[in-house]
């Protein structure tokens, strides 16, 4: 234990003497949170719209005006020719084509129903889905205001289908209200996720680099000749980096609160508790990486390759629900996903210990697993 005290002192001295490292530790969360939280959003604004208005009536013009007035769509071209619209989409000059067929106004006035065709470029499936939902909502509301109903058939990818006749008789007014993040503020949703991603990178990379640097310098070999035991060495490496990462978590939460007003509806203590457990996993992976590589360059490469998979399977940028079943199984075992969900649940929803217990258990199990593997991999003597 005495050796641990001296080793810990050494690690802290080295960390606090590395001014570049310290600057980065404080700057990275600030910059990343401010930039990414503003940039990473699922919202779609200013979709370019090609209008094919074959009705040319007051009501058809009203429908287009509604779409444009919403701010979601920007009318970039108009023609009566479907072929021209198709060409525009193929050349990627527009994201959506709205076709209002002849007899639109007559249909609403006489039969209280009409058909509108939406054609979307579904190369980016999620953006197309979002645009489609917006357009549908705006047009339905317009139809309702006029006292009719509207059936917009959705045709993905520029293919054509016959406009299906409207079936709905009554007017259904669906009103949605987002619970827990009532204003659907994407920043509130993204900040906890980005913060965890940041914490993972810092935790894993710092650990891997720190140990590999000693390998390169030859000081690790020197330590391996001393009676310092494996657990003591590993504890001396992980504890300082763990405290450092916890500090970054605190800074990140503070920035989220100051800059974006991200709420803390649940217990701050629970957020830190979750972070503390999750960091064991992140640092353990770094430790494991350091045992399989020889140079800092390799450490960097392996870390980023691994984190990329980790990140994309975490549900931070792509919802887990829309992954194929096998990927959902993988994502479910991903501790980063659990930590992000825990953070969002506690901060935005005010979830308590019982609500996030499953996340904590998965993270704790992964932590123990990763550390066990890493410690077994770390040898003082090579075979």
């Amino acid at each position, binding site marked *: 234990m005495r050796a641990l005290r001296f080793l810990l002192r050494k690690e802290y001295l080295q960390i606090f003497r590395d001014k570049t490292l310290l600057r980065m530790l404080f700057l990275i969360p600030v910059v990343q949170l401010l930039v990414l939280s503003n940039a990473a959003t699922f919202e779609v604004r200013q979709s370019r719209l090609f209008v094919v208005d074959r009705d040319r009536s007051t009501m058809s013009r009203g429908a287009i005006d509604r779409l444009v007035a919403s701010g979601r769509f920007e009318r970039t071209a108009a023609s009566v020719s479907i072929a021209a619209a198709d060409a525009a989409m193929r050349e990627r000059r527009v994201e959506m084509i709205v076709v209002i067929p002849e007899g639109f106004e007559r249909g609403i006035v006489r039969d209280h129903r009409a058909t509108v065709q939406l054609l979307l470029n579904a190369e980016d499936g999620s953006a197309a889905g979002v645009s489609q939902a917006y357009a549908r909502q705006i047009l339905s509301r317009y139809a309702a205001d006029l006292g009719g109903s509207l059936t917009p058939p959705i045709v993905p990818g520029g293919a054509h289908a016959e406009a299906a006749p409207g079936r709905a008789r009554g007017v259904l007014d669906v009103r949605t209200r987002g619970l827990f993040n009532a204003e659907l503020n994407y920043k509130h949703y993204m900040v906890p996720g980005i913060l965890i991603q940041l914490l993972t990178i810092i935790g894993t990379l710092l650990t891997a680099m720190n140990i590999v640097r000693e390998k390169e*310098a030859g000081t690790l070999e020197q330590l391996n000749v001393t009676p310092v035991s494996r657990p003591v060495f590993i504890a001396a490496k992980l504890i300082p980096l763990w405290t450092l990462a916890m500090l970054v978590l605190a800074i990140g939460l503070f920035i989220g609160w100051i800059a974006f007003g991200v709420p803390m509806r649940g217990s701050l203590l629970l957020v830190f508790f979750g972070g503390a457990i999750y960091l064991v996993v992140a640092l353990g992976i770094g430790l494991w990486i350091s045992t399989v590589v020889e140079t800092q360059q390799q450490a960097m490469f392996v870390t980023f390759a691994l984190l990329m998979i980790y990140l994309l399977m975490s549900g931070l940028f792509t919802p887990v629900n829309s992954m194929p079943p096998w990927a959902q199984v993988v994502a479910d075992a991903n501790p980063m996903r659990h930590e992000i969900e825990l953070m969002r649940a506690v901060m935005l929803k005010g979830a308590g210990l019982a609500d996030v217990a499953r996340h904590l258990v998965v993270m704790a199990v992964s932590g123990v697993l990763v550390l066990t593997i890493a410690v077994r991999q770390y040898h003082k003597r090579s075979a």
Partner: protein
Amino acid sequence: MTLAIDVQRLTRRFGAFVAVDAISVQVKTGEVFGFLGANGAGKTTAIKMLIGLLEPTEGSAQVAGYDVRTQSEEVRRRIGYMSQRFSLYDDLTVRENIQLYGGIYGLTDDEISTRGAELVGGLHLDGAHDALVGTLPLGWKQKLAFSVALLHRPLVVFLDEPTGGVDPVTRRQFWEMIYAAAARGTTVFVTTHYMDEAEYCDRLSIMVDGRIAAMGTPAELKAEFGAPTIDEVFVRLARPAAMAGGV
């Protein structure tokens, strides 16, 4: 006299390549033993097995009375090691490095401060106690590393090319330190490329292609090979190997 190092037919293979081929060496307590050999002869591999950094393939080795295979932690407590690469922390001060290694080997705070003061005084580094090690000149760093390797008063100290790249005056001082350590009863196991240094050893062995080609006191070796210097002995032993290797 008891044996500080007792190596019997120690072998290390890397796949088909035999880096160390059944070497046997006995070093008596308090001896300064020179472990010579050309580059790639297997010196570093042999040392790494003796200090517990590398698993031997075959054979046995006892260091400070303990088996390096089964009692490596006991061995580690009783040995000091200074590698070819400078292995103190550049971003810690002289004092902090001393405290770190003292603490690792379980010295008390008092021992650390008294031995640390002696060490620094002995090296005439008094003014540099709180200087970062990275700012010291190479020669001082090497001497400091050697002193730190002796801080816990090991029974055996392994020095792997300790004087590489330092000036002749510092080399001379370094060897004075080696003699001083041996006089205190520490066994010194040292590799070197400087044949004048080899002459300073009590006994030495010359390794060629993983085998020990010759062993004895410098005088014995010179007599055996009818050579005026160890340098000459070394060249005669090492040359056939180099030529067979196509060099």
